């Protein structure tokens, strides 16, 4: 990636539904509600939109979203694969489209009933039609859930660097503390302690306890992207897209990349990190706050290392409650993250980062200069650096 895209596009609108365990409505309706809310927030009309981007996993077709919103025509639409790894990738696609003039206004959306509908951890009950080929190397041995796939990888990291499950507790505590003061969060007013974390039951022993695993949520979120020039005339302070990148590493699988020489890192995030720093000209010390994808806590520690916030094997000492809370050296997941606010496949980390840029977050970090956002880990992934306009 070159620096060509730097600050040429901006996120100008954000929208979301409530986050729940049973939305009581279709995924398509959630998507439409989120897109409409994001356009209203931006002060734009459906007729201004000519591009849509979503996840390959999303069930709401672009043309159905357009039909519901009354978007008259679309000149650009694309989808990003690999589950939650897609989140920031949708913004990259949208930014490329508006910066090149292929589209004027692009909306990125993600909506699902991941708790009341199909649950990602429920692989075992839906295999009547036969195992997907890749899963045939894992499911017969009892590795049937994202938690189990991640744990077998993270165990090697723990072994190599002397990391224990207690080290992961700091991530859960920070997220739940931030969620406790965010009325949108499912775990609003319900903080936890390290003792609560250590008392929670094993999901995959000795790596993941219940409080190391993100929640499951119903809901939708959407982002409106246009050029930085047009953004200046819109309702809110734009969140400039200083850098956006996708990344896949060599010899990888969707969540079971067990065959690489070394299992102590997240090479996909390394590919993303290298591009983000190069394209932005920034360093980790320039980042005021970050949203680090937290579907499972061990991969937050490994991300801190891949992104260069600390050295290899040092995250167990860096990732303290003090360092990662507001007032610390790198406040993370100020909305409560996927553990505390909602599991919206990372899109709620981007909406929160835009609020931080605007200065409207419930847990506002003072003097935000640059925000780093990452997408799902253990899979091909993506990342963003957002900045306020000058």
């Amino acid at each position, binding site marked *: 990636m070159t620096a060509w895209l730097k600050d040429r596009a901006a996120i100008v609108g954000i929208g979301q539904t409530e986050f729940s365990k049973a939305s009581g409505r279709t995924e398509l309706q959630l998507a439409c509600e989120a897109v409409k809310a994001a356009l209203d927030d931006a002060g734009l009309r459906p007729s201004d939109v000519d591009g849509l981007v979503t996840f390959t996993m999303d069930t709401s077709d672009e043309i159905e979203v357009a039909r519901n919103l009354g978007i008259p025509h679309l000149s650009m639409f694309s989808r990003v694969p690999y589950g939650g790894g897609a989140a920031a990738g949708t913004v990259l696609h949208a930014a490329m489209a508006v910066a090149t003039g292929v589209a004027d206004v692009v909306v990125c959306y993600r909506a699902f009933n991941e708790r009341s509908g199909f649950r990602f*951890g*429920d692989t*075992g009950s839906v*295999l009547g039609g*036969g*195992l*997907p*080929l*890749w*899963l*045939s*190397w*894992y*499911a*017969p*041995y*009892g*590795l*049937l*859930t994202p*938690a*189990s796939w991640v*744990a*077998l*990888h993270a*165990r*090697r990291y723990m*072994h190599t660097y002397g990391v224990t499950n207690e080290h992961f507790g700091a991530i859960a505590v920070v997220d739940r503390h931030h969620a406790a003061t965010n009325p949108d969060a499912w775990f609003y007013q319900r903080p936890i302690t390290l003792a609560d974390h250590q008392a929670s*039951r*094993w*999901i*995959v*022993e*000795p*790596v993941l306890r*219940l409080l190391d695993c993100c929640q499951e949520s119903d809901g939708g979120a959407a982002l409106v992207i246009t050029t930085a020039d047009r953004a200046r005339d819109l309702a809110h302070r734009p969140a400039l897209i200083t850098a956006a990148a996708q990344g896949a590493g060599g*010899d990888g699988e969707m969540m*079971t990349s*067990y*065959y690489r020489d070394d*299992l102590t890192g997240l090479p996909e995030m390394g590919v993303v990190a290298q591009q983000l720093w190069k394209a932005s000209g920034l360093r980790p010390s320039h980042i005021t706050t970050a949203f680090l994808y937290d579907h499972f806590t061990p991969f937050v520690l490994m991300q801190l290392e891949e992104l260069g916030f600390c050295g290899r094997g040092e995250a167990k000492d860096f990732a303290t409650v003090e360092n990662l809370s507001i007032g610390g050296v790198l406040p993370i997941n100020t909305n409560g993250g996927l553990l505390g606010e909602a599991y919206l496949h990372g899109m709620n980390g981007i909406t929160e980062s835009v609020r931080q840029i605007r200065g409207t977050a419930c847990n506002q970090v003072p003097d935000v200069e640059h925000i780093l956002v990452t997408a799902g880990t253990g899979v091909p992934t993506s990342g963003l650096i957002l900045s306020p306009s000058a």
Partner: protein
Amino acid sequence: MSRIEPSMSPDTAFFWEGVAQGRLLVQRCGGCDALRHPPRPMCPACNSLAWDPYETTGRGQVYSFVMPRHPRYPGFDDPHIAVLVELEEGLRLVSNLGEVEPEDVTIGMPVEVFYATFEGGIVLPQFRPAAPT
């Protein structure tokens, strides 16, 4: 005890046919002799499409292991051990560890393959602590 039956493709069927015969097979590239697993059509080192099955010793060491506790699936002891084995040939594969208690397993422990038949005639490679040689 039941286990979920693996799916196969023309790229992977040889592995399961080998397991049914008590042999742990991987691919050996016809172009550069590199071994690979899981099976796939092309050699990433030399891009050859030619390969033949290569029988491993079935011995290796524990590279990583975990005990999935929740959700519970029928056909598995609680706890059961999912293991990532690094074979002597340098390849890794996922399996289960048997004939050992979780507290006695260590990363780096020598292990050897054996074969278990589950309900419906499903045969899977399993590993256990290696007999002293």
